[in-house]
């Protein structure tokens, strides 16, 4: 197998970063990205792209930590380079505040972000309803810029990108040797994964360029994340809701909650409302599978179910998925050489 043909289904942050990792670990592969949506119409484009991990209940912590560390290290290097503004990667400092002191004062990622420490009394005065807080500096991936930058890097390696709706992975078996499933919420339908469920998030993207600090309520429901051109105000976490329609009452509620954390937001302009469905799962599915139908085998690598934490772990899971693609290639090579005996 001189040049394995790999199809990556999905062009959000997971699909694009996985495709890029595959071109890096397997330069002889020919990679094609297939998706019904590309930036700016992916779920990733709705997200703020903050590197603050979400904890997956059933993924071992050391694995989540490893994914986050790899992702943070990768983006840290980009943020420090001349490409930072094109890639949409920038550092941002701020606070996570809690109405009551959390059980776990030191999250597993506290030593990976920069300068993590408890907030001082003086800092907490700004948040009269909150008793405890954490101050740190982390990274933000602004979309569309980050996705467009990934697309540009992919095109430079010769990766093809096609708009196409894949209704069944078997559609791809004649043209491709390996399929990589990065379909996010689409995996519910595409591979019938009933463990995957949407967690609806509505956000506001506003013009408020004087907001330089992020503020997040530890309950995860209210957050203010300053991006390059817009500030993302959030949000909601509606488990099981499939609606992509913005809700006006929710918009007012989000705005009020954010203004109570940061009163100057009253002066925000150009409010844009967006909705995304976090493709949620008890554990992220990064896994190899060989599909079988009528004697034909199709190697599949799954990389989906990142829920609220896609950006935080994307590069780590992409590396792992690329590694699994490598294993698929080895398996194909050894089975084809066995066939020659």
């Amino acid at each position, binding site marked *: 197998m001189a040049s394995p043909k790999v199809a990556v289904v999905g062009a959000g942050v997971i699909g694009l970063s996985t495709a890029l990792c595959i071109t890096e670990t397997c330069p002889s592969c020919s990679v094609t990205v297939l998706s019904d949506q590309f930036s700016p119409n992916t779920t990733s484009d709705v997200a703020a792209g903050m590197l603050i991990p979400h904890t997956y209940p059933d993924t071992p912590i050391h694995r989540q930590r490893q994914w986050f560390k790899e992702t943070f290290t990768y983006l840290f290097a980009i943020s420090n380079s*001349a490409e930072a503004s094109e890639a949409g990667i920038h550092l941002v400092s701020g606070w996570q505040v809690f109405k009551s002191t959390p059980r776990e004062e030191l999250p597993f990622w506290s030593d990976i972000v920069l300068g993590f*420490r408890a907030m001082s009394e003086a*800092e907490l005065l700004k948040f009269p309803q909150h008793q405890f807080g954490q101050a740190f500096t982390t990274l933000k991936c602004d979309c569309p810029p980050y996705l467009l930058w990934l697309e540009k890097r992919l095109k430079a390696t010769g990766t093809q990108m096609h708009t196409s709706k894949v209704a069944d992975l078997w559609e791809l078996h004649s043209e491709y040797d390996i399929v990589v499933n990065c379909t996010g919420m689409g995996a519910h339908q595409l591979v019938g994964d009933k463990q995957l469920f949407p967690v609806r998030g509505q956000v506001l993207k506003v013009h408020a360029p004087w*907001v330089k*600090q992020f503020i997040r309520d530890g309950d995860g429901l209210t957050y203010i994340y*300053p991006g390059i051109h817009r500030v993302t105000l959030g949000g909601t976490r509606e488990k099981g809701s499939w609606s992509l329609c913005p809700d006006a009452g929710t918009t007012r509620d989000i705005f009020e909650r954010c203004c109570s954390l940061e009163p100057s937001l009253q002066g925000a302009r150009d409010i844009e409302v967006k909705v995304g469905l976090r493709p949620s799962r008890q554990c992220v599915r990064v896994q190899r599978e060989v599909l079988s139908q009528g004697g034909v085998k199709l190697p599949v690598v799954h990389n989906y179910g990142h829920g609220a934490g896609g950006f935080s772990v994307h590069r780590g899971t992409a590396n792992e998925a690329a590694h699994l693609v490598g294993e698929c290639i080895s398996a194909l090579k050894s089975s084809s050489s066995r066939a020659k005996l």
Partner: protein
Amino acid sequence: MRVAVIGAGVIGLSSALCIHEQFHGLVPSLELEVYADHFTPHTTSDGAAGLWQPYLSDHGNLQETLWNKETFDYLLGHMHSPASKEMGLFLISGYNLFTEPVPDPAWKNIVLGFRNLTPKELELFPGYSYGWFNTALMLEGRSYLPWLTNRLTQRGVKFFHKKIESFQELFSQGVDVVLNCSGMRSGDLQPDPELQPGRGQIIKVLAPWVKHFIITHDLKSGIYNSPYIIPGSEFTVLGGIYQHGNWSEENSAKDHKSVWDSCCRLLPALQEARIVDEWSGLRPARRSVRLERERIRLGNLQAEVIHNYGHGGFGITIHWGCAMAAARLFGSILQEKKQLATPPGPRL
């Protein structure tokens, strides 16, 4: 009681507001006037980036440290109000970078969350081996000065677009007290060899991905002679020029190159930033701020001048503390003139 303020930069306008707030209720005859040849957006205060940060050392000048603290606390108190946006006031965090360990600054407990930089953070800044991180405030002159002007106009304070040539000029018109907030040009009103320009040149760029201030220090070159990057609400200011004794307000190509090259070395992504403006200004530098009363004899008149100038590169940082001090001096003048039964403040 006619009070004339000379100068409409941050010092003049804030002193005027402070005095009017404190005394207009107690002195019904109080008439406040502001005279200046430059108003916002053409004052020195408009050119400043607006970052609250004193110099590294207060040289034992505890008074100035206290005024800095008063200003920070006053501004922080306004952070809860929706007016903060109109004032051009917002929180910002950032980095101070050094090539060697230095003692903590006098203002370490005034700002929020002051700490040393971690080794990983220092990786962002090759060539610098030590530094601080803290959260401070930005107060953009281009918003703050109009905001002060609006507050003053609402209070009936009158503005005159006029270059005052001498204190006499105002006293002969019947002004009782003059507040000299004329910054760099104070020497034209009364010679002061201690007042010297600290020329600066800045480049304004569009770099909205920069969310932190970054100020480098070269202890041998002195303050502001090392690159700094300060993101505002619209533009990011690149600077790093401090030329003592240079009166030129013309942009210099050599200084442009020095600022541009050194800032791009600090933040490589700046190479992609679009330059939108360039400006040179004169910091009204003095060994210490001149904030004091002076009695001038004019014939048989006792004319009162309150000097409030010489704030160098920390005018915005110290302005409110100085305005309050100027108001206290004004209060003592009123007492002496028997315009006030007792000084303002809590009655025993």
